[in-house]
């Protein structure tokens, strides 16, 4: 499940910031919440998304950020 969550988050962010930065941002966000990107569990998704919001915020208008976060949360819901 954990790798699936990482791949989903990267998949949502990739069209916005490219594969390399999407992977980096998910890894950074997971690390700030105290885990690696392979260890994100469904219960951690909201916390990881809060960090991701601040990462992509400078590049994206609020509706785009909200949409990305909503997509990650809805696609990783168990």
């Amino acid at each position, binding site marked *: 499940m954990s790798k699936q969550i990482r791949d989903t988050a990267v998949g949502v962010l*990739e*069209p*916005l*910031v*490219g*594969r*390399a*930065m*999407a992977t980096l*941002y998910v890894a950074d966000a997971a690390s700030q919440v105290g885990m690696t990107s392979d260890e994100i569990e469904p219960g951690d998704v909201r916390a990881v998304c809060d960090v991701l919001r*601040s*990462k*992509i*915020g*400078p*590049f*994206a*208008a*609020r*509706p*785009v950020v*909200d*949409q990305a976060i909503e*997509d990650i949360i809805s696609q990783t819901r168990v």
Partner: protein
Amino acid sequence: MGTDHVVSRRTWGIAAAGILVSVVCLALIRRSIGTDTEAFYGNLPSILTGAAASITALWAAMHFDRSEGFRRQWLLIGLGMSAIFAGDAIFAYLEVVAHKEVPFPSIADPFYLVSFLLFGGGLLLTLLSFRRSLSIMAPLTVSFVTCALATVALWPSIFWPIITDAEAGSFEKLLTIWYPIGDLWLLAFPALALAIALSRLGGGRLAWPWWALVVGFSGIALSDTLFALMSNDGTYASGSTIDAGWWFGYTAVAVAASLLVDVQRPIRRGGAS
């Protein structure tokens, strides 16, 4: 997600219209060399593409909420394009309507000169807003070194002749030297730093408008530099091929502004916004 789902018809239309106007006017200039209409065709694309760029950039800025950084960044860029448009309109009036040899400095020059400050401010605000998510120190350093080397390279052909011009007064020299300084340090320096910083976003769609903006400012800076070199040689005339760098540059700024609105729409899976 393909570009056809993100890029609007408006953006494609602006790009096509800008290219069409520029190419057609270049052809018409070639056919009208030495006639009264040469100056008209030489000035027309600057007016049309400059107006399109300033209107689109200001419209894009107002598209965003006051709390969004894009609003301030694009207001400055839009005001910079408006200043260029005002300068071009005055220049065209003097040359085409009043049939005067445009003097230097003319009433158009303050508008051109202030545009550098507005563009530089918009680009630096953008770079600073990215600092939380991208490393900007390395791009700033690389860009600084590049622009310093370009300044040294252009010193004998552009800067030195201006400084040592015995016929020009101090004020005229100051105005003249502001152009290459503005191009190098207020346009090229932040634009190159932005391009290097954004290279980390790869093909991510949020980078697309900024790529277009960098292309546009590069075109403007290139034409400005060639204009300065040709003016020193006495080989420049309104409607020269180098003017196309301004026209395509203004078109790219208009495309960048329209693209910003396109990519900043939330897009549902399947392409619907």
